[in-house]
């Protein structure tokens, strides 16, 4: 149990950041981490035998967050359908509302596809090697490299379009 507690303490922030990156909502991210912790507690003996328990927890968090994101998107789609057409997310009003450059960049990153966003996050925020990212995302290291390249290129393009860079 001490081993498990130590493991959770060491990765909890990383799990939360990853969940937050995917679902982009603090409460939802907390729920994701909570779900992961409960499930991992039930499998703690199995986890203890793994070669890389943090990678397993990160992978589980990613899956859980994507599931929650999809459920939320389905819900949002139904709500949008019920509420009528929404505003373009890049309207001048919304740009002005998020004038701070960091929140602007955050919004741009959130426009990236989930896989690219996740790979970028694991590299830029968590400082993980390609091999480690591949282990979490179940992509090959080559795919990770491609996703990272595409993500950064896309980010550069979007930043230029938004006149930030």
């Amino acid at each position: 149990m001490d081993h498990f507690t130590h493991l959770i303490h060491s990765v909890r922030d990383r799990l939360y950041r990853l969940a937050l990156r995917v679902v982009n909502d603090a409460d939802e991210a907390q729920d994701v981490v909570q779900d992961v912790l409960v499930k991992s507690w039930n499998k703690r003996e199995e986890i203890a035998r793994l070669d890389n328990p943090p990678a397993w927890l990160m992978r589980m968090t990613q899956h859980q967050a994507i599931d929650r994101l999809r459920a939320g998107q389905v819900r949002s789609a139904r709500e949008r359908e019920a509420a009528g057409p929404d505003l373009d997310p890049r309207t001048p009003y919304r740009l002005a509302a998020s004038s701070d450059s960091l929140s602007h960049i955050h919004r741009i990153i959130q426009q990236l596809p989930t896989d690219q966003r996740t790979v970028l996050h694991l590299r830029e925020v968590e400082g993980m090697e390609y091999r480690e990212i591949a282990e979490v995302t179940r992509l090959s290291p080559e795919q990770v490299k491609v996703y990272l390249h595409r993500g950064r290129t896309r980010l550069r393009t979007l930043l230029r379009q938004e006149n930030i860079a």
Partner: protein
Amino acid sequence: MTSAQASALLDRYFAGESTLAEEAQLRHYFCAGDVDPDLAHYAPLFAYWTAASDVTAPRKSRPARRLPLRWLAAVAVALALVLVANGWQRPTQPLSAFPIAEAKPVDWSKYEITDQKEAYRVLRAALKTASTELNRGPRITVRELRQATEALR
């Protein structure tokens, strides 16, 4: 790091070819403050990644959702009223409707005394008991009347 080195590293960075160490150098360069004006527009990006690395999971657990006590109380009262009204209106079953076990008839004949001496002994015991109990009642009555009379004096 010179501007030329930073620019070259940036190209590697956006091509996805930089190492973690090179990316750390870039971050350090852009966060140090002395950035080439031509590259300054990339500074917010690296500042963003640095800020994102500092995010931590909330340590405090979120407050538990409070139960809507007023609503629960109202529901409880309504439920109690429904149950009371239901019990009030429900017709009570007549006593005859309740199943009653039939008592088995007692065969007294087997207790019948046939011996004369035994019959005499039982009769004598019964009369003695009746006499004792009959005398007991008046004795109690007389005693209580006496106590009442003394109390009235």
